[in-house]
């Protein structure tokens, strides 16, 4: 499932995938894969992304159960 919230939060901060990747010390491909839903990041990387984007884990990574 695509992580559109991450993409939106990154865009709101006016960061490119490469800039976010550099900030959290991963490759651009990793950020791209997370946004596309192809890769589930570790909690450590999730926290680094949240800190960079000033968001909480819930805001970016919690998936609400569909009713």
């Amino acid at each position, binding site marked *: 499932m695509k992580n559109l919230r991450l993409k939106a939060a990154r865009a709101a901060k006016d960061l490119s995938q490469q800039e976010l990747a550099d900030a959290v010390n*991963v490759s*651009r*491909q*990793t950020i*791209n894969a997370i946004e596309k839903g192809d*890769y589930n990041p570790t909690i450590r*990387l999730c926290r680094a992304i949240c800190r960079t984007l000033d968001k909480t884990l819930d805001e970016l990574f919690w998936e609400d159960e569909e009713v």
Partner: protein
Amino acid sequence: MNEHAIGFVTGLVLAILVIGMVKRILYKRNGKMSEYDEMQKIAQGMAYKYGFLTAVSAVVVCSVLDILNIHLFADDATAMFLVLFLSVGVFAGCSIWKEAYFGLHANTSRYVRFLVVVTAINLIAGIQNLRSGEMFSNGRLNYRCVNMGCAILLMVMLLIMLIKKKMCETEE
């Protein structure tokens, strides 16, 4: 030890020294050693797995054919070199495709230029061996085909890098 063996061992030692020097130049000039992120490490693990399985499968096939006395297209040592190229090619190809081949701080363009030079050297040596007919003995490939095998492996790697680069340009 005859002259041929001394030359072979000297070449091997020189190759190891050159690889060590090139690695230092490619990775240490910017003060950072190669580092991979968590997704790259997972991708590399999968690539190693595929490379290993390819090597095991190819060695089993070669061994069974040898036991059955079915002559391969290459002599024993050459067949092992070709198996090596095949498994390295699978590992490198999978890693490049998943963008896990180069570390986070690697100078990719410098590395690619180095690969192009090595490919050209091997291709020239391979074509010379092919044209002189030294690549075959008793109708089978001998160790002189190693340059051509190496050139083909590197060309495939460069081709995958090129395709991946084109794909990434339109990704974000």
